[in-house]
C-alpha cells in the first residue's frame, strides 16, 4: 500500500493483486492465491458469457433480481449460499492440506503449502463465509421459500424489504469475494478480536473488508428477522392458530425473534471496532482506557444466540422430514414447541462460556457453565421426539433421512463435547485447541449443513417441479457424513494432544498421522461437494423423468404440498381456511383433497421493482469505498441509500393484479392434471411413477 491516499482512488493500489504477488514471490502460497483469484475472474467471465449467449440477462433481471416474491428471493439466497459454500469447502480443504504438510522444526519453523499470513486469511475467510454467507443465507433462504407457503400466506409481510435484505446480504458476500482479487482479507479469524485487529497491529484493508461485509449483511439479517416475525404474527391464514403451525414455522419464529435481539449486538461491536480503526476511538485499544473484553462480551452476546439461529431451522426441517418419511404424525408436537422456545431464550444467557478464561470469578463461570449445560435438555428432548416419530414408522431411506440419521449419530457427539467444554475447569485445558474446532464443526456440519441440505432436497421439487436424484443425493449425504468423521474426529485427538487452533505450523511429529487422516477427510468433503453439484446437474438433465407436476411427491401433511410443482407465483389460488394442525393431511383423510375452491378472486401481488438491487449496489459501493478510503464514493453511497428510500416513498405504487379468470384457468388445469395422473404408492416414491400425486389411502401422518 502506498503511503499517500489519492483523492480519487483512495488507498486502492492495483499493484497488490494475487497476480503481481505470484510474479514477485513465486511459491505454492502465492500460486494458490493467484489460482483462487483466477477462478473468481474466469468464473465471472464464464458466467457473463453464458448469460449473454443464452440471452438470460433479461429474464434474470425481470424474473429474479426485481422480483419481490419471497419464494424467488429464497431461491436466490440459497444459490448465493451454495456458491459461497463451494469456496468455503475448498478453503477448508486447502487448510487441511496445508496442515498435513506443515510439520516444522525448531530451526525451520515455517512449512506447508501456504505462508502463515495466507493461512490466517484462509481460516478468517472460511469462518466468515461459512457462518455469514453460507449458513445464514441457507436458512434465511429456506425460511423465505417455505414459511409463507406453510402459513397459508401469499408472501412475506414486507416483500420489498425482503428484497432489500437479500441485496444487503449479497453486497456483503460480494465484498468478501472481491477481497480475493483486490487486496487482502483480515487475519483475525471470524471473530476479529481486537486489539490485534485494531489499527496498530492490523493496518491495511483486511479487517475493514470483514467489518463492512459484516455490518452490511448484518443489517440485512436484522430486517429479515423483523420480516419473518411480522409475517408469522400477522399473515397466517385464517384458522392457522399458533398451535396449528407446522414445526418449521415455530423454529422460524424463534429464529426471527433471535435475529431481532441478537443482530444488534454484532452491529454495535463491529461499529465500535470500525470507530477505533477509522476515527481513533479507544473502545478496544490497549491504551487510553480501551478494553478488549468489551468486544468479546458484545460480540458473543450476538455470537452464541447466532449458533442457535443457525441450528433451529435445521431442527424445523428435521421435524418435517422425520414425520413425512416415516408416514407418521410428529411425536410430541407441544414438547417440540416448548423445547424450541426454551432453546431460544436460554441461548441468550450463556455467551460468557466463550471466554471462561477472561479472569472473572469462579462463581460467574459456574453460573454460565450450568446455563450452557441446561440447553442440552431441550435439545435432547427434540432428539428423542424425532426418534419416537420414526419408531415403528414405515421409514423410507430417502436422502433427507440419510442426513437425519447422520445427524442423529454425529450431532449427539458434538453436543456431548459441548457439555464437556461447558465445564469451566475443563475448558481451561482445551480452549483454543483443535478440540474446540472439532466440537463446533461437529455441531455445525451435522446440524446446520445436513439440515439445510436435507431441506433443500425435500422442498426442491416444490420450487422447480422435479425431484433431485435420490441415488446421487444419498451418495452426497454419505460422503458428507464419512467426510465429516475423517476430517474432524482426529481434531478431537489433536486438541487433547495440545495442538492450538489456527496454527500455521507445529513441531510435534506425533501429530502427523492424525493430520493425514484429517486431510483424507478433506478430500472426501471435496468429493461430497462435487457430488452435490453433480446431483443438481444430473437431476436437471433427467428432469422429465423426475417431474412431479402433482406437487405432492412425498405424501406430505402441510399446506405447501397442496399446490402444483413448481409452485405458481401466487402460491394459493385462494387463501386456505385452516381447520386442523395437519391441514393438508386432514383433507386427505377427508377424501378428495384436491377439490377446487368455490370461487376465485383477483389476486393482488406486489409489483416488481429494482429497489433492492439499487440499494445493494449503493451499499456495495459504500462498503468498498470505505475499505479503500475512497471518500467521495463513500459519501455518494451513503447519500444514495436514503435518497432511494425517499424517492420510493414519494411515489404511489400500485400492486399488480392477477385477474380471477387467469387464476381460475391455471388452477383448473392443475386440478385436471392431478385427476389424470396415477397415484403413486410409497414403494413407487423413487420411481418414475411418482408424478407428485400420492396414494392418499396410504396417508397416515
Amino acid at each position, binding site marked *: 500500500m502506498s503511503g499517500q491516499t489519492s483523492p480519487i482512488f483512495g488507498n486502492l493500489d492495483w499493484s497488490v493483486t494475487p497476480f503481481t504477488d505470484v510474479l514477485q514471490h513465486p511459491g505454492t502460497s502465492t500460486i494458490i492465491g493467484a489460482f483462487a483469484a483466477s477462478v473468481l475472474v474466469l468464473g465471472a467471465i464464464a458466467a457473463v458469457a453464458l448469460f449473454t449467449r443464452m440471452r438470460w440477462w433479461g429474464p434474470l433481471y425481470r424474473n429474479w433480481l426485481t422480483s419481490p416474491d419471497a419464494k424467488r428471493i429464497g431461491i436466490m439466497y440459497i444459490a448465493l449460499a451454495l456458491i459461497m459454500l463451494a469456496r468455503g469447502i475448498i478453503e477448508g480443504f486447502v487448510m487441511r492440506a496445508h496442515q498435513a504438510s506443515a510439520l516444522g522444526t525448531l530451526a525451520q519453523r515455517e512449512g506447508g503449502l501456504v505462508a502463515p499470513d495466507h493461512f490466517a486469511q484462509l481460516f478468517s475467510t472460511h469462518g466468515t463465509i461459512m457462518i455469514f454467507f453460507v449458513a445464514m443465507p441457507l436458512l434465511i433462504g429456506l425460511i423465505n421459500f417455505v414459511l409463507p407457503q406453510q402459513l397459508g400466506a401469499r408472501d412475506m*409481510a*414486507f416483500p420489498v424489504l425482503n428484497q432489500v435484505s437479500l441485496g444487503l446480504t449479497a453486497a456483503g458476500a460480494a465484498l468478501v469475494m472481491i477481497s480475493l482479487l483486490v487486496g487482502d482479507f483480515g487475519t483475525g479469524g471470524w471473530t476479529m478480536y481486537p486489539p490485534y485487529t485494531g489499527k496498530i497491529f492490523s493496518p491495511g484493508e483486511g479487517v475493514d473488508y470483514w467489518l463492512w461485509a459484516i455490518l452490511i449483511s448484518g443489517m440485512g439479517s*436484522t*430486517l429479515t*428477522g*423483523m*420480516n419473518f*416475525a*411480522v409475517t408469522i*404474527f*400477522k*399473515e397466517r391464514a385464517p384458522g392457522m392458530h399458533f398451535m396449528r403451525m407446522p414445526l418449521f414455522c415455530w423454529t422460524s419464529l424463534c429464529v426471527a425473534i433471535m435475529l*431481532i*435481539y441478537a*443482530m*444488534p*449486538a454484532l*452491529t*454495535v461491536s463491529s*461499529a*465500535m471496532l470500525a*470507530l*477505533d480503526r477509522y*476515527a*481513533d*476511538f*479507544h*473502545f478496544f*485499544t490497549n*491504551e*487510553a*482506557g*480501551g*478494553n478488549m473484553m*468489551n468486544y468479546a462480551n*458484545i460480540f458473543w*452476546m450476538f455470537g452464541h444466540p447466532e449458533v442457535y439461529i443457525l441450528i433451529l431451522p435445521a431442527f424445523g426441517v428435521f421435524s418435517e422430514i422425520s414425520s413425512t418419511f416415516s408416514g407418521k404424525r410428529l411425536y410430541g408436537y407441544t414438547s417440540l414447541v416448548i423445547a424450541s422456545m426454551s432453546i431460544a431464550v436460554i441461548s441468550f444467557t450463556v455467551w460468557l462460556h466463550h471466554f471462561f478464561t477472561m479472569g472473572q470469578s469462579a462463581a460467574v463461570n459456574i453460573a454460565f457453565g450450568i446455563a450452557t449445560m441446561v440447553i442440552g435438555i431441550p435439545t435432547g428432548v427434540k432428539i428423542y421426539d424425532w426418534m419416537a416419530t420414526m419408531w415403528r414408522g414405515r421409514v423410507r431411506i430417502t436422502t433427507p433421512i440419510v442426513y437425519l440419521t447422520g445427524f442423529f449419530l454425529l450431532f449427539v457427539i458434538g453436543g456431548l463435547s459441548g457439555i464437556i467444554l461447558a465445564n469451566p475447569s475443563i475448558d481451561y485445558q482445551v480452549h483454543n485447541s483443535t478440540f474446540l474446532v472439532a466440537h463446533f464443526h461437529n455441531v455445525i456440519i451435522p446440524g446446520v449443513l445436513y439440515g439445510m441440505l436435507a431441506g433443500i432436497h425435500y422442498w426442491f421439487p416444490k420450487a422447480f417441479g422435479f425431484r433431485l436424484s435420490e441415488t446421487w443425493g444419498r451418495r452426497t449425504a454419505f460422503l458428507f457424513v464419512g467426510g465429516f468423521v475423517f476430517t474432524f474426529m482426529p481434531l478431537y485427538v489433536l486438541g487433547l494432544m495440545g495442538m492450538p487452533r489456527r496454527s500455521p505450523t507445529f513441531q510435534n511429529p506425533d501429530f502427523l498421522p492424525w493430520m493425514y487422516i484429517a486431510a483424507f477427510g478433506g478430500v472426501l468433503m471435496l468429493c461430497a461437494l462435487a457430488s452435490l453439484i453433480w446431483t443438481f446437474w444430473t437431476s436437471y438433465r433427467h428432469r422429465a423423468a423426475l417431474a412431479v407436476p402433482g406437487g405432492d411427491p412425498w405424501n406430505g401433511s402441510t399446506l405447501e404440498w397442496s399446490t402444483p410443482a413448481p409452485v405458481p407465483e401466487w402460491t394459493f389460488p385462494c387463501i386456505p381456511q385452516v381447520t386442523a394442525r395437519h391441514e393438508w393431511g386432514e383433507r386427505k383423510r377427508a377424501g378428495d383433497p384436491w377439490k377446487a375452491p368455490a370461487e376465485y378472486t383477483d389476486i393482488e401481488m406486489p409489483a416488481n421493482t429494482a429497489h433492492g438491487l439499487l440499494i445493494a449496489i449503493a451499499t456495495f459501493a459504500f462498503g468498498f469505498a470505505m475499505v479503500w478510503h475512497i471518500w467521495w464514493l463513500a459519501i455518494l453511497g451513503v447519500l444514495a441509500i*436514503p435518497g432511494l428510500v*425517499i424517492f420510493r*416513498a*414519494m*411515489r*404511489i405504487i400500485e400492486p399488480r393484479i392477477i385477474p380471477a379468470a387467469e387464476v381460475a384457468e391455471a388452477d383448473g388445469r392443475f386440478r385436471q392434471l392431478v385427476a389424470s395422473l396415477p397415484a403413486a404408492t410409497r414403494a413407487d416414491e423413487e420411481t418414475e411413477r411418482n408424478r407428485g400425486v400420492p396414494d392418499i389411502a396410504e396417508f397416515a401422518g
Partner: protein
Amino acid sequence: MSGNGLYPGLNLGATHGEAHEDAEKTVFGFWVFLMSDLIIFGILFASYASYLDPVGMAGGPGPKDLFDLTSVAIQTAFLLVGGIAYAGVSLALKYDQGRAKIITWLLVCAVLGAGFLFFEVKDFIAQAGEGGVPQASGWLSSYWALVGLHGIHVFSGILWIFATIGQIATRGLDDVVKVRLSMLGVFWHFLDLIWVGIFSLVFLVPLA
C-alpha cells in the same frame, strides 16, 4: 368509520378492513424494528457504564470537567416539548383538520428538534475544545458514540419529517402517508424515551 377500534386516530379509508389490517401490520413491524434499535442503545448504555471509571477515563477529562447541566436541561426541554408537539400532528390527523395544520405541527416538531441539535452540537464543540474528544479515552469514546447516535437519530427524524411533508405535498394524505405519519410519531417519541435514559444515566449519574 373507525368502529372496529383499530388505529382510530388515523382516519383510514372507509372502504373496508383491509387498510386497517395493512396499517396494523406496518406499524407493528416498525415497533419490532424499534425494539431492535433499543437493543443497540441498551448495549451502548452498558458500555458507557463499563467505561465510567478511572481506568476508562485514562487520565483524560471527566464528567465534572465537561458536562454543562444547564445546556442539557435546555436540550431536554426542546426534545420533550417537541414530543408533545407531535400530539398536534396526531390530533389534526384524527379530527381531519387538513393538510396545512398537519404540516404546521410537523414543522414545529422539526424546529424543536433542530433546537435540540443546536445545543447538543454546541456542547460537543465546547467539550472538544476542552480536550474532551472521543480520541481522548475509552469513556469519551463511549460517551460520544452513545449521545452522538441519539443525535443522529434526531437528525434522521428531522429528515423524515421533511420527507413526510414532501409526501403530503406530492401525493396528498392517502392511507399510506397516514400510516407513515403514525410511524413517524412512534419514532419521534422513541427519541424522547432514549433521551430520558441518556439524561439520567449519562449526565446525572456521574455528577451525582
